């Protein structure tokens, strides 16, 4: 097992290098280069830009710049924001909890709901419920998240006035858990929609596959009651593709969170990203690209390890 984890970690290294190369390349592809934002500012003179260029080391050969930048990324020095000169990593990390809260609550809702729908659909295949659920999932997957968000705001915040339309707290109520929960409902609902659809589709097919295996028939022949068959025999075997899905889903989760956060003004990383985009804050943008990519790699790594932990056959590969 330790060897397996070590090998998987080793395999992540070329990915990290690739990710950093693309991130670095993108920053230099930006029109005007990393300093474009200063050239737009009329109060900054040409010689000032030249000075900044030297301070940032942008006069050095490109590979030297890359090595400096990459070692910075892996040692926690992610550069400084153009506006305010704050460390990029700090700026990103202070937005992380809000995003994790949103992703966590949406993911829990989606997994609980999607799994139940999928399992029920698999158990009662081709029933009215199953047909409705699979069709509904296809509908949900086609829904533009941001429009769904706008509609949710329209119905629940503007028309019915049940829930707040955006933000994380009511003004002056920062820290009030009740207010936070109220604000959390709509974004969670919106972000969870697509994930629920994915989970119901995946868990349905995972369970259908498992339920036709010989060991399931054997369990039935032995007289294992249906509930125990589902929980003790089917579930551990169906869990593998679902854990893999969890790993694969990380980038979609970030994308979805970005969309949801911009609609609801949720002060997380997605919101930060869109704001940084508007202000041409390249250091923040690149920092976030790197941050999410590292998260994605970690997510896949953890999923692989979890699968190996529950399935002894995988480790032998």
């Amino acid at each position, binding site marked *: 097992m330790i060897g397996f984890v070590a090998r998987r970690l080793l395999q992540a290294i070329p990915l990290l290098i690739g990710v950093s190369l*693309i991130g670095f390349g*993108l920053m230099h592809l930006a029109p005007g280069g990393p300093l474009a934002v200063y050239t737009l500012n009329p109060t900054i003179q040409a010689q000032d830009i030249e000075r900044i260029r030297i301070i940032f080391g942008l006069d050095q050969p490109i590979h030297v710049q890359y090595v400096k930048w990459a070692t910075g990324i892996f040692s926690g020095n992610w550069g400084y924001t153009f506006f305010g000169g704050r460390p990029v990593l700090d700026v990103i990390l202070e937005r992380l909890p809000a995003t994790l809260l949103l992703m966590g609550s949406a993911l829990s809702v989606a997994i609980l709901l999607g799994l139940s729908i999928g399992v029920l659909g698999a158990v009662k295949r081709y029933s009215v419920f199953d047909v409705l659920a699979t069709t509904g999932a296809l509908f949900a997957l086609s829904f*533009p998240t941001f429009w769904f968000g706008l509609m949710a705001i329209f119905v629940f915040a503007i028309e019915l006035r049940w829930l707040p339309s955006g933000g994380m707290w009511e003004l002056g109520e920062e820290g009030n858990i009740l207010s936070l929960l109220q604000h959390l409902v709509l974004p969670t609902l919106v972000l969870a929609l697509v994930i629920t659809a994915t989970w119901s589709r995946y868990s349905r097919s995972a369970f259908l596959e498992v339920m036709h295996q010989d060991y399931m028939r054997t369990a039935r022949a032995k007289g294992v009651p249906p509930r125990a068959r589902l929980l003790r025999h089917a579930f551990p075997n169906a869990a593998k593709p679902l854990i893999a899905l969890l790993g694969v889903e990380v980038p979609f989760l970030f994308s979805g969170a970005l969309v949801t956060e911009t609609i609801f003004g949720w002060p997380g990383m997605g919101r930060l990203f869109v704001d940084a985009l508007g202000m041409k804050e390249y250091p923040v943008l690149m920092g976030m690209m790197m941050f999410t990519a590292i998260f994605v790699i970690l997510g896949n790594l953890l999923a692989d390890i979890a699968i190996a932990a529950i399935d002894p056959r995988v480790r032998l590969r």
Partner: protein
Amino acid sequence: MSATAAAPESQAGRVWARFRRHRLALAGGMVVALLLASALFAPVLAPQDPTLLDTALRFRAPFADWHFPLGTDELGRDTLSRLLHGGRVSLTVGLVAMVTTVMTGALIGIAAGYLGGIADTVLMRFVDTMLCFPQVFLLLVVAAFVPPTLVSISLVIGLTSWMEVSRIVRAEILHLKEQDFVAAARALGASRARIMFRELLPNAAAPILVAATLKVASAVLMESYISYLGYGVQPPLASWGNMLTNAQGYFDTVPWLAILPGAAITLTVMGFNFLGDGLRDALDPRLRMDP
């Protein structure tokens, strides 16, 4: 001469029969056909000039005035005309992006799959790396870097979403290249390019077609989203995405301005998704009765 196996008409017929059983896919196909037709004939169908503004006629409600069947927006422009012309823009971006996606993905997938070895390792590592970035992040960063024109938006969407296609095509090629007709071509001295594009590529058409259909859906979605955020199609050119942006400001008073373009996006995405889903079932190689 007696042909024992079925004629090609009936092979296509079998696919059609499977596809037809899929009622949602059929509906999706019809929606797609209607949308394409309405986009094609938008200049004829649109009752008004979509850019014609008349502030005296702001915020007309839908179905109230036959000159403006779906009402007017904040500048008094006809919503139906804008929807039709916006659909033209959105579908163009969707289709061009899809072509970019499919061409890039197929090229990389076929090269990795057929050439194998170092080329395969390098290309697939590149795919893995690209997939580490959440697509919306990658898309927005690049979209913010380039001046937004219809072509650049399409290319940006296409070039940030080909990775899945390349994986699908590679898997198909890995399976196909072991078949003897490829060995026969090599024995005849066929070049690599000929084998990849004349022998292998046509055989991977089915999964590519399915991926292409689904990619139009996601490209339309992506276009609407980046236009909504202001990095896509620029006003006064209407797209469903930037119509939503405008509408958001008047959300509490005139919700139909936001509902209509959103519904158009949803309809389009659903149409292509259902069509693609049905095509996948109809063309699924595991179900294929091919001898």
